[in-house]
């Protein structure tokens, strides 16, 4: 395994929701076997795992809540040989239900089909801070390898005891332990029979290196896929309980509005309807959504609104209030900028802006809540089930052990489902109604009352020498965040700083966090510098790089794209961009066509991606292609319009996302580094598409666009 911890700065981010509750492992061992039946169970302690990992992040920059203080993964082998892996991570479409099962099958030496995963259930699964930060693969893969390896050792030891032979000669393969000398053989299920053996991982067990993987690394189809094409899979909005009511919430007219007067005399008379007014919360539960809405419509409320800033003054506000929410405790300062600028052949300064965008997961926020004997169960699509549990417990003043949060496999999230809003609403209404209540947000609620990828202003000042080498680099990010803020290029003299600004709109994680904004500014700027130096953009980047992994993705993307290409038609343009973040590397080449009216069509994308050893190439291709397409929306046209605390475009008719007509020809080149531990892949592949498109638009039109979205109404010609 290669060392890459020095490159790895996980989540130095303000916008990854990161409250820090105190956690306890509450499931006693005997309860565990009571739930699952007899067998063999292996538990791993996460703290220990992280200490043993070469990719261990430096503690100073790591969110402490991502290091659970007790058990972090476990595995159970039942008497019928069924293997169950337990993780607090959630399946949100990123395919961990399949890829983690592959890892377990691989290490335990069982057929893939005999492994099932239990995910994101606060009663059944180990504590987990949340499914974000591209951590599922890098954190859970080694842990499941270690539990599976320990389980295999335990099974071999059981067989050795049974046959009264030495364990060393025994072979574990295909769900069995066998003894080549005596031809004895026993299935894992037989060996687990009648046992309630549990073990917390002992010392480090060696695990199987990627070069010897047999089930991992393969294109195994998604688990449960048939239920997706038949409509049988149930997402949270699809769940029903006997006696269930539908809940609706009365939303204020603008952000931060408070209730001045409340009159529900007209609504209260309706039979079968429960109305709740609690602080600034007003909600209704009724047998149908329609009836709940009607009850709310009959409530008369006077609101007090507060004036707020709007799109048009956003960027000047961010710039003027830079640092007002805290200054950067770890700015990067290297060398002497004065020296860097002295004798520069070219200097280039520019300002870049990024608008707010929405996640718009197709499954809206939803929750189904049920109270029974003072205990609360909530089914909800969230990336942070344990944080949701804690918030529910705190809000309703019940012990955490009386709250269970269960996450059905989700209709995606992209970083947008960290909060417990819908869960709190459903639980509040269910408590009042004395019956289960389901709340499903409308699209308008989703666009308005969720949270956004933060907007930002980025200023770059730079210089290169006559040879085209960077000599000075200043980079100031106002508000959008720190992820991916550090340049991967070699510059002796630099200053890189983040300036926190008080929130304008509710903001949080979004696939890639600020790495998209920071890469957009940096890679657009690099392109402009290459033009100034009259050097090919690819050659210019390579000239300023020392990281071989970054060079490898750039070269792979360029090869697939056939860079540099000659223009053959009017309006054609080519651009590229690259970057690294969260232990993985991306390079993207783009061809655009800009027509006479200035409309931009992305014609072709070739993207190379490297995230260490590949666990499932099929799932990875999905992530990479999906990130390119999702990134195309934020690059070209997505922007939240807001005025005085109101979202002006809370509908798909006015908030444009990529559709079939927008989809380019896409080549995803996946570099498999068997010598590097697997990193996550959910985020980094989105980072380079926006600057690559912008650079291609420049190539096509000569117009340097410095804002995201680049061309919501086309390029002005």
């Amino acid at each position: 395994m290669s060392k890459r911890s020095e490159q790895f700065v996980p989540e130095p981010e303000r916008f990854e929701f990161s409250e820090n509750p105190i956690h306890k492992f509450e499931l006693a061992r005997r309860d565990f076997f009571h739930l699952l039946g007899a067998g063999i169970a292996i538990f791993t302690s996460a703290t220990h795992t992280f200490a043993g990992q070469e990719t261990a992040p430096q503690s100073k920059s790591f969110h402490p809540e991502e290091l659970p203080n007790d058990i972090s993964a476990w595995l159970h082998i039942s008497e019928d040989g069924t293997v169950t892996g337990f993780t607090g991570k959630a399946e949100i479409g990123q395919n961990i239900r399949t890829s983690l099962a592959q890892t377990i099958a691989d290490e335990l030496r069982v057929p893939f089909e005999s492994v099932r995963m239990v995910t994101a259930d606060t009663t059944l699964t180990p504590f987990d801070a949340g499914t974000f930060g591209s951590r599922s693969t890098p954190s859970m893969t080694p842990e499941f390898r270690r539990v599976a390896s320990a389980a295999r050792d335990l099974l071999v030891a059981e067989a050795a005891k049974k046959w009264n032979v030495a364990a060393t000669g025994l072979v574990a393969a295909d769900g069995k332990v066998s003894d080549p000398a005596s031809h004895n053989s026993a299935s894992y299920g037989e060996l687990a029979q009648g046992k309630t053996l549990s073990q917390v991982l002992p010392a480090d067990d060696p695990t199987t290196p990627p070069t010897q993987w047999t089930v991992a690394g393969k294109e195994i189809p998604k688990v449960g896929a048939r239920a997706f094409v038949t409509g049988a899979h149930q997402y949270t909005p699809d769940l029903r309980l006997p006696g269930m009511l539908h809940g609706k919430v009365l939303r204020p007219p603008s952000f931060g509005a408070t209730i001045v007067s409340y009159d529900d005399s007209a609504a209260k008379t309706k039979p079968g309807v429960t109305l709740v007014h609690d602080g600034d919360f007003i909600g209704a539960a009724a047998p149908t959504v329609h009836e709940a809405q009607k009850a709310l419509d009959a409530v008369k409320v006077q609101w007090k609104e507060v004036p707020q800033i709007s799109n048009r003054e956003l960027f000047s506000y961010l710039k003027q209030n830079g640092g007002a929410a805290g200054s950067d405790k770890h700015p990067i300062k290297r060398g002497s900028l004065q020296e860097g600028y002295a004798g520069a052949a070219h200097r280039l300064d520019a300002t870049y802006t990024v608008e707010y965008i929405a996640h718009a997961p197709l499954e809206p926020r939803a929750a189904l809540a049920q109270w029974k004997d003072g205990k609360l169960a909530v089914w909800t699509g969230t990336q942070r089930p344990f944080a949701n549990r804690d918030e529910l417990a705190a809000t309703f003043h019940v012990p955490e052990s009386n709250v269970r949060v269960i996450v059905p496999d989700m209709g995606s999230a992209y970083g947008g489902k960290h909060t417990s809003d819908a869960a709190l609403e459903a639980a509040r209404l269910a408590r009042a109604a004395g019956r289960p209540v389901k709340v499903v947000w409308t699209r308008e609620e989703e666009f308005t009352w969720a949270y956004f990828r933060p907007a930002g202003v980025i200023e770059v000042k730079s210089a290169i020498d006559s040879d085209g080498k960077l000599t000075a680099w200043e980079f100031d990010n106002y508000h959008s965040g720190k992820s991916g803020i550090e340049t991967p290029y070699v510059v002796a003299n630099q200053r890189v700083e983040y300036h926190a600004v008080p929130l304008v709109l509710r903001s949080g994680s979004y696939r890639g966090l600020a790495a998209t904004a920071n890469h957009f500014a940096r890679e657009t700027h690099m392109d402009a510098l290459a033009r100034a130096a009259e050097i090919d953009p690819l050659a210019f980047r390579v000239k300023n790089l020392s990281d071989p992994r970054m060079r490898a993705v750039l070269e792979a993307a360029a090869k697939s794209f056939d860079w540099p290409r000659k223009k053959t038609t009017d309006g054609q343009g080519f651009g590229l961009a690259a970057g690294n973040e969260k232990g993985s590397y991306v390079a993207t080449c783009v061809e655009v066509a800009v027509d006479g009216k200035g409309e931009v069509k992305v014609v072709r994308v070739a993207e190379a991606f490297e995230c260490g050893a590949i666990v499932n190439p099929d799932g990875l291709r999905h992530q990479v292609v999906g990130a390119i397409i999702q990134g195309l929306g934020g690059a070209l046209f997505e922007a939240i319009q807001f005025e005085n605390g109101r979202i002006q475009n809370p509908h798909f008719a006015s908030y444009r996302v990529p559709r079939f007509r927008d989809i380019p020809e896409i080549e995803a080149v996946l570099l498999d580094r068997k010598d590097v531990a697997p990193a996550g892949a959910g985020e980094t592949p989105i980072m380079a598409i926006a600057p690559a498109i912008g650079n291609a638009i420049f190539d096509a039109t000569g117009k340097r666009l410095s804002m995201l979205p680049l061309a919501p109404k086309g390029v002005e010609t």
Partner: protein
Amino acid sequence: MANPLQLEVNGKRYTVNYPGDTPLLYVLRDELGLTGTKYGCGEGQCGACTVLLGGAPRRSCQIPVSAAAGRPITTIEGLEQNGKLHPVQQAFLDAGAFQCAYCTSGMIMSSVGLLKTNRNPSAADIVQGLQGNMCRCGTHPRIMEAVLNAAKLSREPQP
């Protein structure tokens, strides 16, 4: 109380008591328990709620239940016959044409509708036919592949 309405869904007859202007989507999901048809926007913009009404793909969130009464409705649950997937379902499964899969029902229903009127669609025809269906995970290229394969499957004589 509203007058009872007669619905024919997936070959079965149902009598429902809903105000006639209730969107068909809510009746399918909340009354008949056919939750394979998804709510995505309620505005006819995302296609997640697509069903076949009289054989044509329609957004069930935009159809008042009274307008659907008396006409055959097919939902995603009605495609599979005797344990055998519809060729479009099979093609989606074979291509792995989903990530979170929340859009999948609507994509499949729109594709079934498209192939009913165009047995041999070009890539451009599919883009046109699915333009009203959104996928936020970015699975579009595989969905295109699946629909092209489904067209091929549908044209082959069935054993």
